[in-house]
C-alpha cells in the first residue's frame, strides 16, 4: 500500500541502472495510459476558453443529463451497498448449500458485457419482451425510462461492494462476531458495533467505486434508455451524442465534468484515509 524508502542496506539495493530503467518504464507507461488521456479531456474541453466550456455545460440537455446521472448513482449505489453488505455477510459468516454458485453469480456482471446486461432487460421488460405486455397493461413502462436505466446500472455495478467486502471479511474470520455473541450481544448490535467498524474502510472504497462506475456506465444504459435527449440521456450518452454531432467542446466539457466526479470520489477517499490514518493503523494488526 505504501511505497517503501530505498533500502539503506546496500545488499538489498538494486543496481542503479536497473532501478532507473524500471522506474522509467513505469512512468512512461503511466503517462501514456493514464495521465495523457485524462489531461486531454480537460485540454480539449477548455480549448476554446472558459466561456464556451460553461456554455457547453449550461445547455439544457447537458444539465438534464447531469441531473439524471447523479440521480441514477444516488439510487444504484445505495441499493448495491445494501446488497453487497448482505451478500458479503451471508457468504463469509455462514456455511450453506449453494454458496459457490452465489459467489459466481455475484461476479457475473463483471464478466458479461454491459450491452448484454442492457439487452436482457429489453428482452424481459421491452414492448415485445416476456413481461412487457403485462406491464404495459398495468401502465408500467420500464424500457426507455429512468426505471430501466436504474435497473441496468444496478445490475452492472452489483459486484463492486460485495467484491470489495468478501475477501476482507473472509480474512477477518468470525471470531470477533463469536466473541460478541458469547458476551451477550444480539445480531444487530454485533453487526453495527463489531462487523461494520471492521469493514468500514473496505465498504467505503466499494461504495465509491460503485458510485463512480454507476455514473460512467455506458453500454447497458445505451441499450435500455433509447438515448432520448433531455430525458433519458445520462452524461456518458450525452458525451457520445455531442461528439457525433461534431460538438467537440461541449462533448469534452461534459466528459471533463464526469472525469471530475470520478476524481472527487477518489479525493474523498484519500482525504478520509489521511484523516483517520491513526485508526487505520490500529486496525492493521493481527
Amino acid at each position, binding site marked *: 500500500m505504501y511505497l517503501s524508502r530505498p533500502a539503506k542496506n546496500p545488499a538489498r539495493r538494486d543496481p542503479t541502472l536497473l532501478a532507473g530503467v524500471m522506474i522509467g518504464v513505469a512512468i512512461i507507461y503511466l503517462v501514456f495510459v493514464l495521465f495523457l488521456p485524462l489531461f486531454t479531456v480537460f485540454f480539449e474541453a477548455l480549448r476554446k476558453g472558459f466561456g464556451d466550456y460553461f456554455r457547453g455545460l449550461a445547455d439544457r440537455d447537458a444539465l438534464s443529463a447531469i441531473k439524471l446521472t447523479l440521480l441514477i448513482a444516488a439510487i444504484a449505489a445505495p441499493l448495491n451497498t445494501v446488497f453487497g453488505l448482505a451478500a458479503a455477510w451471508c457468504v463469509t459468516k455462514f456455511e450453506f448449500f449453494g454458496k459457490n454458485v452465489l459467489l459466481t453469480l455475484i461476479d457475473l456482471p463483471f464478466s458479461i458485457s454491459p450491452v448484454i446486461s442492457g439487452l436482457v432487460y429489453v428482452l424481459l421488460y421491452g414492448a415485445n419482451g416476456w413481461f412487457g405486455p403485462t406491464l404495459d397493461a398495468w401502465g408500467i413502462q420500464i424500457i426507455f425510462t429512468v426505471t430501466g436505466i436504474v435497473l441496468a446500472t444496478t445490475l452492472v455495478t452489483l459486484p463492486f461492494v460485495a467484491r470489495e467486502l468478501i475477501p476482507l471479511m473472509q480474512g477477518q474470520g468470525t471470531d470477533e462476531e*463469536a*466473541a460478541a455473541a*458469547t458476551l451477550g450481544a*444480539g445480531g444487530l448490535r454485533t453487526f453495527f458495533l463489531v462487523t461494520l467498524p471492521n469493514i468500514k474502510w473496505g465498504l467505503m472504497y466499494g461504495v465509491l467505486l460503485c458510485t463512480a462506475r454507476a455514473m460512467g456506465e455506458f453500454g447497458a444504459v445505451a441499450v435500455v434508455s433509447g438515448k432520448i435527449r433531455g430525458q433519458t440521456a445520462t452524461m456518458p450518452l450525452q458525451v457520445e451524442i455531442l461528439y457525433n454531432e461534431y460538438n467537440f467542446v461541449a462533448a469534452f466539457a461534459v466528459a471533463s465534468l464526469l472525469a471530475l466526479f470520478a476524481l472527487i470520489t477518489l479525493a474523498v477517499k484519500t482525504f478520509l484515509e489521511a484523516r483517520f490514518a491513526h485508526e487505520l493503523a*490500529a486496525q492493521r494488526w493481527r
Partner: protein
Amino acid sequence: MSLEVTGVRKSFGRFPALDDVSLLAENGEFLALLGPSGSGKTTLLRVIAGLEEAETGSVRFGDEDLLAKPVRQRGIGLVFQHYALFRHMTAAQNIAFGIKSKPRAVRPSANQIKAKVEELLNLVQLEGLGGRYPSQLSGGQRQRVALARALAIEPKILLLDEPFGALDAKVRRGLRRWLRELHERTGLTTIFVTHDQEEALELADRVAILKDGKVEQIGTPEELYHDPASAFVFDFLGDSIQMACEVKGGMAVIGGVSAPIIGQKPDKDGPATAYIRPDGFQIGPKDGEGLGARIRDVLLAGPDARIDCVIDNDGAVEVRVPHKAAKGLAPKDRITLKARAVRVWA
C-alpha cells in the same frame, strides 16, 4: 453447581470430531482438556459455549439445559485462542462490551460500568492501559484483556481455548501461575484447552485426556501420571520407551530378564509391548544380565544423567539414571540395560 456433559456427538462431514463425550466439571473446579490437535478438545469447548451445535447429547449446568439456550444467553465466558479482541475498541471498551450488551432493565449505569471496568483492569494487572487499542498491547496483555472481557459478564463458567498458545515460553510460565492464582481468587468453574501436557498437569485440578473425539481418561494429574489407563495416556504424559516383551505369569520378560508389571496386568501370556519411562532402567556392566547396548553419548548436565545408547539389534534409547550410576561411563562403552518395572496394555 456442576457442569455435566453427557454423550455429546459432533461431526464435520464424515469426520467425527466428538464421539460420545461425557465429563463432569465440579463447581469451582479447574479442568483441563488435553489432547493432540484434532482430538476434539476445542470443538467440545465450542459446543459448551454454543458456537457449535452438538448432534446428540446434553450439556447441563446444575438443572439448566445449556444446549436449549442461544449462545448469548448462556452466560459462559470464552477466551479465544487468538483473543478475538474488537480491534477498533480500546481495552476498556472491549471489557465494557459485554456489560453494555445487557438488556436495558438489568444494565448498570455508566458510572457503575466504568468502575467495573477499572476493577477488572486492576484484576488483570493492566491499570492505566484501558485507553490502549489491542494493536498497542503485547501478546500477554491482549490475553489478559480478553480474560477481563470474558469475566466482565460475570459468567457461571469460564472457558479458555489454548490460553497460552500464542505466547513465548517465558511469558507463558508467568501467566500460568497468575491464572492459577486468579482461579483461586474467583473460584469460577474453569475449563481450559491445551495440547501441552506440562501445562495441564501443573495447572488443573483434574485433566481430561481426549483422543480422536473420545475421552481417554479423566482424573487428577497424579492419577493420570501414576495410573494411566492406556498406552496413549502414558505416552502422551511423558517420554516413554517401548520394547517388545513376553508376558509370563504376570511378569514381562525383556532380554531374558523379567520385570514386574505395574497397574493393569494383561489377561493372557504371550508377546506384548512394554512401556517404560526413561528413568525406569538399571544399568549394569557389559557382562551383566539384560539387554546389551553400546553408549553413543553421555549427557551430564541436568538433574539426572542421560545416557544415549543403541540396543543390540534394536533402536536407540535415551535412559535417565542418577549421576552416581553414570560415573565412569563414556561413549562406545558397552553396558546392559534392565527394566525395573514396566507397564503393559493389552
